[in-house]
Every structure is written in C-alpha cells, then in structure tokens.
C-alpha cells in the first residue's frame, strides 16, 4: 500500500543533505566544542557556522542564537527565563488562548508562582483583537507571548503589529515560531521580536535540537545551570550533530520559501477546494488567507476526527486531529474550542500538514478516498441520522 504522509506539522523527515552534513560529527569530529584542543576547535567552528546560518534565516546576529533541545525548551526558557530574570514575581504575562501547550502550561506554571496572567481570546478565525491586547498591558506587564503560526489551524498572527504594540509599551515580546520557520518568511527585525522559539524537526532537521533567538540586551536566567555554554544562557554539552543539521536546514529553508512553498500552497489549496466541493457540511478552521501555506484544518459535521484518522490510516494516509501533542488525550482541541466552533464541529476536525515530498497524486488520492470515508462514518453516526430524520 502506498504511504502518504500528511502530518508535517507534527514532524518532518530529516532532509538528506542535513543528515549528510551531520554524520561526520558522530565519529570523525566527535570533540566537545568547549575543549580548546584540536578535537574541540574544529567542532566549535562547525557549531559557530551553524549559528550563523540560523541567524541569517531570522535576520539576527549569531550571538543572539541560543541552541536548545527543542521548541518546548525554547518556549520555557523564554517565559520562565524572562520572569525569573526580572525577579518580579508579582509581574504580569499576556498570552493567547490558542498557544501551544508548551507556552500555555509554562504560563500556568508561572501563574502558580504568583505571576498574573492574561489569556486573550480569539475570534472565529483564530485571530486576537489587537485593541484588546494593547488594553491588557499593565505597568507591571513583563512579557507578551503570541505565536507566529498556529500548530493546529495554521492561522498566522499579525506578529509585526503585536511587536509594534509591545515596543510602544516597552514590553518584552516572545513568539513561538516553531510552525512558521521554513513556511513563511520570519524576520525578527521586521517583526520587532525580542525572543523567538524554533524547533529543528519541523523543517527537516532532526528531533532533539531547537533554538531561541534572544535579542541583544534581553536578560534571561537559564533553566539549566552548569557550564558557561551558550554565553551562560543554557548549560550542557552542545548537541553538535543536531546543531550542524539545524544550520543546514535553516540555510535550505530560506531558499525553499521561494522554491517549495508556492507548490505546497497550491497543493494545499487543491486539497481544500477538493474537499469543499466533494463533501457537504464541512468547515475550514483557521483564517482562510492568513494561514501557514502547508496546513489545512477541516471539520466534518456529525463525526469524530479520530474515526476519520483511523480510516485514513487504513488507506495509508497519515494525518492528525489537531496537535500530535494532544492526540492521546480526550476531549476537544483547546484551539478549536477557543475559536468558538460548535462542539459538534470542534470534535470532528482533522489537520493535513503538507510537506516538500507531497505530490499532486497524493492529494488526488486523498480526495478520492476521503468522501466515501466521511459518508460511511456519517451513515453510522446517530447525530447524522437524527438530522436526516428531523
């Protein structure tokens, strides 16, 4: 059976050229980059080259990049690191209802420590009200954390406008750009961002490596104490192969915004239009235009998203219901709920995440098998028969 992977928002395959660049750093160049001898020096150069590549993609300076183990660590370092550094335990943090759990749960942790928290609601498209955001800023506000692109719906926040508001009020601005990197242009200067999280495995680098952009002059207290690595912002021996891979992936991501993304966007639109024209009572979740080009989140009335995924999987198609981080938990997606979607629809959403390997044939195959799956599930659904009877 043909296998079709449409869950690139969950994770991606390591790119061949990324893996190739990483391999020498396992056996030949195994040194610790902190060592001053020959074995360390050459490895240290490779790490610094990777740092430059990451910085170039973000329009940042190399010294503003801190390597971490993943997107969640980057988010935790940004949020907890900022609050601890400020020592303002009665301070205030603003975030949004649709953030990744790594942000929301970090904020909830801070709340338990005494920090005041404002969680902004979103509208039906998943966007925040910027006036409300600005009105929520208080004299003691330490930080605004608002994601660049939503991991479930793909909705893109107007990051530059949020950055301008934060700057106007001299509030630190963090953005979780884990889903945005490699899919939309990300420029920390244009967006006025102070802290930005990214994760390697979402765009062709391996799992276990991420980075946090820290604007020069933005103080942070580390989460992990130890050696002086990463200018004292993150202790621990560097994950050299992962960092080298992240560098190559960032270099490729810049080109792929031009070379791959337009095609992926066209395929996503083909999938979306195809579903809308073939299946009735469907809702596309997220903003139709301000959206990640690879993401399609769609709800099918009367049936459960999990059931659709199961049937798709039987045909070799891997998709997801919202976030992979949540798919082992029960209940609706907090993102779809926050958008005020009818619970019947909220429970029936699935997410397609296209990637560089997705082909037109893949999309056409999904469009061929999906309508009968939906029909079959609806025929079994008590809600659907109620509706038909009523």
């Amino acid at each position, binding site marked *: 059976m043909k296998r079709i992977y449409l869950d690139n928002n969950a994770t991606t395959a390591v790119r061949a050229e990324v893996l190739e660049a990483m391999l020498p750093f396992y056996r030949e160049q195994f040194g610790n980059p902190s060592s001053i001898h020959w074995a360390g020096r050459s490895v240290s150069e490779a790490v610094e080259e990777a740092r430059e590549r990451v910085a170039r993609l973000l329009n940042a300076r190399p010294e503003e990049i801190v390597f971490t183990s993943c997107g969640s660590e980057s988010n935790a370092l940004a949020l907890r690191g900022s609050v601890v550094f400020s020592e303002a335990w009665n301070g205030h943090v603003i975030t949004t209802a649709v953030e990744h759990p790594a942000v929301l749960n970090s904020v909830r942790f801070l709340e338990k420590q005494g920090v005041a928290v404002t969680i902004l609601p979103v509208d039906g498209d998943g966007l925040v009200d910027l006036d409300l955001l600005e009105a929520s800023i208080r004299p003691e506000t330490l930080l605004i954390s608002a994601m660049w692109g939503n991991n479930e719906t793909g909705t893109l926040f107007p990051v530059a406008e949020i950055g301008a508001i934060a700057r106007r009020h001299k509030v630190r601005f963090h953005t979780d750009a884990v889903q945005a990197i490699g899919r939309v242009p990300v420029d920390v200067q244009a967006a006025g961002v102070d802290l930005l999280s990214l994760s390697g495995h979402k765009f062709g680098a391996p799992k276990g490596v991420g980075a946090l952009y820290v604007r020069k002059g933005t103080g942070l207290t580390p989460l992990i104490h130890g050696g002086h690595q990463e200018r004292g912002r993150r202790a621990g021996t560097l994950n050299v192969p992962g960092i080298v891979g992240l560098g190559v992936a960032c270099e490729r991501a810049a*080109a792929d915004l*031009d070379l791959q993304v*337009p*095609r992926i966007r066209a395929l996503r639109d083909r999938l979306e239009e195809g579903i809308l024209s073939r299946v009735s009572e469907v809702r596309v979740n997220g903003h139709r235009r301000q959206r990640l080009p690879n993401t399609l989140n769609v709800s099918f009335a009367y049936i459960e998203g999990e059931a659709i995924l199961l049937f798709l999987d039987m045909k070799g198609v891997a998709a997801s219901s919202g976030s992979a981080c949540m798919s082992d938990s029960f209940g609706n997606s907090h993102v779809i709920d926050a958008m005020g979607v009818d619970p019947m629809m909220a429970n029936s959403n699935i997410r397609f995440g296209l990637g560089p390997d997705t082909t037109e044939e893949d999309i056409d195959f999904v469009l061929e098998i999906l309508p009968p799956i939906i029909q079959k599930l609806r025929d079994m659904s008590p809600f659907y028969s109620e509706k038909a009877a009523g």
Partner: protein
Amino acid sequence: MDHKKIMVAMSGGVDSSVTAALLLQKGHDVQGLTMRIWDGPVEVADDARRVAERLGIPHHLIDLRDQFRQRVVAPFCAEYLAGKTPNPCVLCNQAFKFRVLLDRAAELGADGLATGHYVRLWQHEGRYVLAKGRSLNKDQSYFLFTLTQQQLGRVCFPLGDLDKEQVRALACQWQLPVAAKSDSQDICFIPDGDYIRFLEQHAALKDLSGDIVHVDGRILGRHSGIYRYTIGQRRGLGLAWPEPLFVARIDAARRQVVVGERCHLDVAELTLQDCNWIIPRPSDSLRCRVRIRYRHREAEATVTVVDEKRCRVVFDRPEQGVTPGQAAVFYDQDRVLGGGWII
C-alpha cells in the same frame, strides 16, 4: 493562482536551472526534461538531475541522439560541404528542439514548455509577440525567429526580464548546485570549438580542395577544403598581397574560395529562404532593421516578400559579412517580426 503544469528544458546550466526555480516560485507544477543529444559524457544530465533533486521536481532524461544526428548534425555538415556557414543553434530550435520538446511535454501531460532563453513573449490582439530579452547583451531572440504562433502559444521564457547577474544571484540565493558554472559559448556537440576536426570526423568528406581565387579571376593559391573557410575570414589564407584579403565568397560547385579586398565584402541585397513570420506576413514590403548574425548590430533595410517562403532584403547601406547559411532576423525596435535563412 494560475497553476500550470510546465515542462522545463533543463540543460544542467545556470539559465535553465533558474528557469525551473522561478516557475516553482510562481507555484507551478514543474518537471525537468533533459535531452541526451550527443555521445560523450552524461555529466550535463547529472547536473540537471542534481538541480531537479535540489528543487524537488521530477526529472526526465530522454535519449534523442538519433533524431539530433538526423535533424541537426547532418544538415550542419551538409551546409559546410555546400560552401555555407550554418547556424546549428537556430537550426536546432527550428527542426528539433521546440518540435520534440513540445511533443514530449504534451505526452507527459504538461500545459507548456519553458526554456532559459533571454527573450520576452506576450500576447497582443490575439497574436504572440516575441521580443528581445530586457538585457540586450544576453538577448537570444535571434535564435528563435523560426517559432510559429502555434508554438509560441505553448512556451514561456521566464528569464526575459532578467540579466545574467540577476540569474546568477538567484541561483546563488537558492543554492542551486550550478551557480558557479560558466556560460557555454560553443556549439553544444562540439565542446572544444574545433568544427573543422568535427567535420573531418563526422561528415562524409570528399576531396573539397581547390583554388583560392581573387574576385578579378586571378588564381592566388590552393586551399585544402572549402569547409575550412568562412566569409569575412582574413587569417589563415596564406597569401602574400599588398592589401589585406578576406574571403568574399565560397563557390562550392567550383570548389573555389574567392577572396578580395575589404570593399569586396560589401553586399547591398540578399535573398532569404524558408522564412517565418511572427507578425502576419506582409503583403509586399516593409521597413525594418535586419540582423544577419547573432552578434550583428542590426542594419536598416527594406524587406520585400517574394513568395510564401522567400524574401528579398535591400540594405540602406551595404553590409559586410553576409554569410549564406546564417539567419537574417527582422526587428522593429525590440520586437521580432520574422526572419529567414540567407542563400
């Protein structure tokens, strides 16, 4: 979005690689196609394949050596043996490349074919207009005068508004593995540029030696084959003469190379055969500028249509270096009107 399935003729060079990338950037469904047209190393195909891999597009390598030999190399040799100086690139575009590639593109289900030529193409009042590339020193419209309206309707030229530096910068920006490759200048099937040796290896050469004759009829010496000479050629004649001598004419029937002083190179008018019109064929004559070889600065002339396939060109002032076998292409400013082959 105007989403199309487009086949790109990929040679493995910078221009065709960037062509494919630009179309991807516009969101088209792009596939690469490379022709194997001549024996010898397949490294150009490898370059094209690597670029296709980098771009993540399907790549097709098709073996067209027989057709290429038949339709391009054989006429190329025959022209030399007939005392002409052929232009294989125009010949290839006319008799081979655009025909074969458009057919293949259609077979593979593509809506159109793109190449990395520096020319511009647009539609005006129901016809296609072919014009010089924006970067005049890279302009390649001379090579494409043979394209018919029907062919023009199925091709696109994404590089028309760019210059070479911009194309290289894009190749670099997109990390295409060809960014540093140098431009190809020579005839693709004669990479060392030594066409005489090529003819001696591949053409059925008879004894084509004969006399070198002055335009006034005096025999000045011997030559070892008419195909070794080109009109306007000065060097390598091996003649002692008070004034510089140039090849003025090649008389294949008598196996004569006719030489003369510079003034004897002047040609006021010429006849073209196998003409093609991009604009509607004029009923009688028109004023335009005529380019008689690739790097020629066009000259003012009057073109008169003789019949469906032939034209007569009368220059306002005589031109030098008019060479049978080369193409003459008509321009109005940047726009290609048509052209034909010099007899």
